[in-house]
């Protein structure tokens, strides 16, 4: 192998271009847009987890002074039974409409029923109180076990399980069954000296983004409409909203505001179509904002799951067979990420015999949305816990066991392709050699190790790079920046053009001033939009050469370009000189990059977690944490480290305290950050981030997406550390004090 390429700009820790505005409060987020004549929209939400809507009477509400419009399901034009791509998943349009404004049944506590637009938020709120609704309350189902029971109340009379050998004739809460297999697990288990199997539970969790959903929408008399919103993908908002409201794409402009976190939860629409309906009916711009209660109850959390895993291994640690049965809650409408769980559960391992079966199950909870590596943390949690238990029972170091079975280039995956170059072995070695792994533990302390795999995606990205007459440039991209991607785009363009990063300003264009770009999800932006930026920069270089050739009476192939200058023989011109003279050589210069990026490189992660457990109270303190991950090439190391640390923090929260708490009648009881306990800064140690760089051969700089893999290992790393500290198996999350104390007391 050749020496790693030396770069001038990428790999540096430049100041992020959006930093000052965010620190000083100038940045405009979803709720920050106001327009002349604007009114406020508020949503009436279901007080029941499961009920038929028998009648709705809005007479009194509409009579209230200041009420200007009411929106309900009936205001959607006839919606097709059609699937639209949206962020990291896809949505059936009928379900999407039905989730945004319930048709004839409410399916979860907080399900939107109708919206009222009024002069002030207070009037809209008051009007909601005047709406009269008659319900027939039904029994809710709140867990996959209950939902799959033969006598379970059925959420959707027209839903029949897909993926069975025979098409069922009876409606069911099981939306779909999937299976993936390779080799023969019976043969594999027969070869095993040890077999471990366990059942695991993970609760419903929320992404916990700090900024609630918010939008301002305007439907103008000429049929042109605009939505300003906080989203991970404004082109996806445009697609979904235009489909729901039967608009041509050129009639709907969507502007992405700055975004205060998404983690997958802002890849679909809730408020935007409703605000446009209210705007159309009132003739006024409409602002809608969710409060925190709404966000918890009625946005898209991550699936609760019940998963079973069975793994067999030989005495020397060779894993011979891996099997899993996964049940994922989809929430009120089909479409959990169980397929991702099936595909990722065992992918860190090169094992010939695997079988995974997955069920997508509807329950009376909000429809799940993507959450950072959607579907992977739950399945890989179960798999990694059992792998650790096997290592313990065989007396083999858990990292050595993983190294013995690690997936590498050429490993066959259960979902089809063989892996290309990947960095799992390098991550495992880095973890093993870390000071953390050498450190000794004391009484009541335990250490957990876990690996994580996520595919990452590519997809469509569009970039225009407009050069200015002074030689600076503006990078117009279509991928909302959640994690510092503008800084990365700037660095990649700077590297390609050989000019200082601060001379290139990255901005997120709206849906009218840049071509279609898929949303920021699947850890795709630095990879795919980065490739579009590189292509646009190369297009600029090509034109700079052409312009220079024209000035020097040469042909473009006779011109070299380096470090912001063209040259040929003794001729030299800077970019600034070429751009200043552009009006005489054919007009201004714009570079374009329109790609459908292939070859996204998977990112493997390996985490180490040390905890101490208070045996008298069950409280877990995280003492030390190390996150190792393959970034391919870290364009901006600070933001790569930030992704590793952020993923770890969210995963630790998932492992320790986060869960939706429901009453027996299906009411969410902890819809706020006081009782839905994400980790505080003081709850976590400094998370050590170790970046491994095994280049992705399909990206010019070797980039792999890094946003998601980091949330996968913490569940098992933390929970297994707890089980080591107390000397007892842990199967159910969260490892909250009451749950851990119960495990201790039940085994006392």
């Amino acid at each position, binding site marked *: 192998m050749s020496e790693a390429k030396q770069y001038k700009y990428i790999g540096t820790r430049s100041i992020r271009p959006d930093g000052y505005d965010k620190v000083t409060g100038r940045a405009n987020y979803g709720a920050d847009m106001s327009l002349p004549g604007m009114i406020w929209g508020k949503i009436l939400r279901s007080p029941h987890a499961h009920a038929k809507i028998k009648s709705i009477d809005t007479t009194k509400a509409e009579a209230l002074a200041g009420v200007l419009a009411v929106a309900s399901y009936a205001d959607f034009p006839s919606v097709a039974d059609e699937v639209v791509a949206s962020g990291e998943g896809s949505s059936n349009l009928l379900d999407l409409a039905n989730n945004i404004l319930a048709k004839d049944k409410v399916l979860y506590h907080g399900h939107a029923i109708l919206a009222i637009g009024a002069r002030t938020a207070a009037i809209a709120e008051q009007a909601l109180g005047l709406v009269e609704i008659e319900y027939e309350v039904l029994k809710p189902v709140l867990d996959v076990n209950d939902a799959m029971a033969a006598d379970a109340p059925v959420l959707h009379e027209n839903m029949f399980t897909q993926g069975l050998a025979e098409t069922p004739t009876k409606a069911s809460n099981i939306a779909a069954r999937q299976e993936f297999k390779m080799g023969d697990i019976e043969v594999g288990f027969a070869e095993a000296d040890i077999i471990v199997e366990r059942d695991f539970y993970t609760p419903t969790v929320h992404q916990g983004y700090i900024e609630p959903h918010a939008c301002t929408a305007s439907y103008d008399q000429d049929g042109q409409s605009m939505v300003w919103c906080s989203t991970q993908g404004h082109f996806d908002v445009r697609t979904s909203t235009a489909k729901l409201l039967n608009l041509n794409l050129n009639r709907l402009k969507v502007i992405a505001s700055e975004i205060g976190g998404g983690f997958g939860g802002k890849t679909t629409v809730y408020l935007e179509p409703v605000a446009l309906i209210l705007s159309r009916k009132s003739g006024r711009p409409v602002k809608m904002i969710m409060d925190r209660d709404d966000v918890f109850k009625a946005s898209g959390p991550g699936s609760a799951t019940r998963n079973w895993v069975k793994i067999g291994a030989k005495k020397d640690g060779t894993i011979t067979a891996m099997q899993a049965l996964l049940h994922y809650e989809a929430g009120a409408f089909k479409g959990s990420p169980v397929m991702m769980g099936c595909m990722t559960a065992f992918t860190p391992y090169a094992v010939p015999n695997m079988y995974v079966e997955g069920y997508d199950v509807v329950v009376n909870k909000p429809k799940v949305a993507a959450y950072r590596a959607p579907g992977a943390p739950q399945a890989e949690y179960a798999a990694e816990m059992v792998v650790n238990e096997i290592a313990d029972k065989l007396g083999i170091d858990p990292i050595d066991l993983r190294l013995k079975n690690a997936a590498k280039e050429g490993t066959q995956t259960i979902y089809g392709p063989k892996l290309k170059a990947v960095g799992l072995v390098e991550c495992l070695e880095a973890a093993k050699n870390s000071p953390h792994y050498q450190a000794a533990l004391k009484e009541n302390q335990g250490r957990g190790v876990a690996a994580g795999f996520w595919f990452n995606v590519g997809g469509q990205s569009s970039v225009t790079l407009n050069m200015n007459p002074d030689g600076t440039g503006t990078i117009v991209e279509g991928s909302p920046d959640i994690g510092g991607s503008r800084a990365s785009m700037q660095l990649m363009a700077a590297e390609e053009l050989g000019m200082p990063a601060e001379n290139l300003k990255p901005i997120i264009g709206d849906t009218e001033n840049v071509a279609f770009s898929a949303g920021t999800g699947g850890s795709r932006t630095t990879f795919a939009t980065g490739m579009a930026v590189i292509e646009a920069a190369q297009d600029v270089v090509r034109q700079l050469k052409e312009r220079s050739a024209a000035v020097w009476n040469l042909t473009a192939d006779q011109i070299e370009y380096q470090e912001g200058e063209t040259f040929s023989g003794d001729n030299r011109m800077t970019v600034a000189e070429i751009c200043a003279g552009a009006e005489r050589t054919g007009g201004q210069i714009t570079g374009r990059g329109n790609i459908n990026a292939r070859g996204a490189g998977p990112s493997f992660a390996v985490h180490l977690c040390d905890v101490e457990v208070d045996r008298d109270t069950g409280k877990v303190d995280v003492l030390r944490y190390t996150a190792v991950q393959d970034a391919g090439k870290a364009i901006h190391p600070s933001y790569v480290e930030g992704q590793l640390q952020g993923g770890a923090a969210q995963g630790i929260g998932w492992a320790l*305290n986060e869960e939706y708490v429901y009453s027996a009648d299906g009411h969410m009881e902890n819809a706020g950050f006081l009782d839905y306990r994400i980790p505080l800064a003081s709850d976590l140690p400094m998370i050590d981030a170790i970046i491994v760089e095994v280049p992705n051969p399909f990206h010019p700089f070797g980039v792999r997406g890094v946003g998601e893999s980091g949330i996968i290992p913490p569940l098992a790393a933390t929970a297994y550390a707890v089980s080591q500290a107390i000397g007892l198996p842990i199967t159910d999350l969260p490892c909250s004090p009451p749950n851990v104390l119960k495990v201790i007391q039940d085994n006392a």
Partner: protein
Amino acid sequence: MPVVEYKVPENIDAAVSMLSNTQLSTKVMAGGTDLIIQSRAQSSDPLVVVDVKHIDSMMAAVIVDGGLNLGPSMSCAQFTARHDIKAIYPGLVEAAYLIGSTQVQGRSSIGGNLCNASPAADTIPALIANGAECVIQGPQGERIVAAEDFVTGVGQNCMAQGELLTRIQIAAPQANTSDAYLRFIPRTEMDIAVAGAAVSVTLDADGTCTAARVSIGAVATTALLVPDAAKALIGTKLDEAALAAAAAAATAASKPISDRRGTVEFRRHVVGVLTRRAAVIAAERAKEK
């Protein structure tokens, strides 16, 4: 809750007069950390708010003859910065330091914590363990109520309309007396007690406990004084058996509910653990005095 009148008295008598001479509902406001949040959710009855922050005695703390005279509205931030108070009542200061966040402590007060009467209030068990008395002034004059009798139910206290909590007083502790307060939360801060325990102990020269008061919080509708837990400690050198008996007494006295913050079983167990641990800390502090 529409505030129809906002009044700012400059002395206790004026405040009591404002609270008494109205037909409307009244609320006393100091920092407003509970009142402002509650006002979003509660009824639409018109309300008179009497802001007592401009009454000097409500905002001051004085050590008198080795005991404490505390203005109920003094901010927790000012209170916890007082090293002279912390030297005498470290447990009470710790309890005040646990309320909300640094920002909230700039507004919140011990009197507010007491009057708000949350079952999970952190300072109430510490006040009870220290034998604090609540001085209440009303149109008919002054009366004194023990801290353990002040709170009468969830969100309810013993004061009638027109009355104002004007002072919290704690007598000078005997020699070799100290206190401690511990609460259990699943995280490290910014949370509400799942259970709490405050213990005050007095030791004699050879380390035998001669007096004790134990109070537990968040495990009943009000913070409770637990005489049986104190009895278990008195006359012992806080040995293992005594601590176990005190813990058992606290568990036995608790009457918690299961909710999103904890189950009955968990709270009953943990309040015993906290009682034992608080007793050990209080005794260590008492020995150093």
